């Protein structure tokens, strides 16, 4: 992967981007157990495959989601988190 498409600024060199890790919904901190919280804080889906990830376009300060395969390093699509529902609807 040498290029990545920022949903706001278009396709840019990978050096302009910072990897933000896997996108993971947080459990409710008021109701979850200590073990569930520790699992959320530390554990990751480390096995290769299709992942939803946070990426950051550094020059413009844009955080967005990329769907990427961590084995092939191919990006399926990128979108802003606010558009996640719309994107999920389109793919159905």
């Amino acid at each position, binding site marked *: 992967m040498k290029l990545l498409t920022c949903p706001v600024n278009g396709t840019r060199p990978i*050096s302009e981007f*910072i*990897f933000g*890790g896997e996108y993971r919904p947080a459990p409710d901190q008021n109701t979850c157990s*200590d*073990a569930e919280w*520790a*699992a959320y*804080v*530390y*554990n*990751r*889906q*480390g*096995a*290769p495959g299709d*992942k939803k*990830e946070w990426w950051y376009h550094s020059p413009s300060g844009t955080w967005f989601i990329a769907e990427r395969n*961590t*084995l092939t*390093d191919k990006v399926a699509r990128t979108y802003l988190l606010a558009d996640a529902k719309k994107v999920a609807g389109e793919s159905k």
Partner: protein
Amino acid sequence: MPFRLLKYALKKEYPAKRFFKSHETPKKSYDVVIIGGGGHGLAAAYYLAKDHGITNVAVLEKGYIGGGNTGRNTAIVRSNYLTPEGVNFYDASVKIYEGLSEELDLNLFYSTRGHFTLAHTESAMRTMRWRAEVNKHVGVDSRVVGVDEILKACPQLDISCSGHAPILGALYHGPGSIARHDGVAWGYARGADGYGAEIFQNTEVLSIDVKNGKVCGVNTNKGYIETKQVLCAVAGFTPRITEMVDLKTPIVIHPLQACVTEPMKPWLNSILVSGSLHVYVSQSSRGELVMGSSLDPYEVHQTRSTLDFVEGLTAHMLDMFPFLSNVKIVRQWGGMADMTPDFAPIMGKTPIEGFYLDAGWGTWGFKATPISGKTMASTIANDSNHELIHTFRFSRFEDYELTGEKGAASVGH
């Protein structure tokens, strides 16, 4: 010095015996199955036999032995870590390494060079003082040195780093060494084979059979093997194995790259590391400069090499050694580093009975090969974590008792 050379000089018969027997079909069952024929897995097989008399052991390697991270690292051995537990652990490893050529009867080219971790900023100097004090407290030879002492050991170094990042001082670690890394895997393989352990190459684990929270066996491309104890020592493949037993871990995989120059006459005796410039370098016994840098910036399960890496690394190398500008890079390669959040390994028992982890070795695994083998063998033989690895236990994350080695485990973090 190993007596092997002398032995063959006086002997009429040659060549030497093969290092280990070539097994094709596994037996129906083994006492212990070790997944991963790298240094760690083979060392565990060796010490299971030597220290605990457990010889009914299979080592399963999906490629060839020592072809993973054992043969891909930059072969540095040191113990100047940040936590007392870490320093104790790695110091025990250095002590075994020092006598290992003799023990395995194989020249590992173990060469004690002295190791400088260069500091370019006041905050780096503070970390060096911290590490030096922890090291001294545990009895390890480390101290903070000034520019004069660095230049005495390495007069070729541009101490101003082309004016970009002047060096203020360094953490000097006397026992810092390099070794021939693939030799370590072969030596342990021969040792384990000699005791009766069976090594299977081209043998991939497809799934692990767990019933009622206990390991019962493993499925491989060469058939089913019954066993009650499985050691997972697969470095960058760890998440694929833990997924088979549905075990969640903090491990994520980032590539780590390295490269070597064409061979030169010996000029660099010391091992030099610069956290700020993201460089570590030593000169191997055949004259190549062996160089590594920081991790690739995002998760990928690949061992590809990139031009970005060589460009970035060599630019920083030229800051330190401008006279190298005409020297060529002849090889580069990558390995998959299994990274943990606290830059310490994950070792020992897991919530699954009979499933042991020797993982999370990220960018710091080679130097720990002997002691990992020894402590994992003890952990498996007694089904109880060895005291040296308590601080690296699987449950430290849910206990919120991390072992913060970030300041000492690698560069550029």
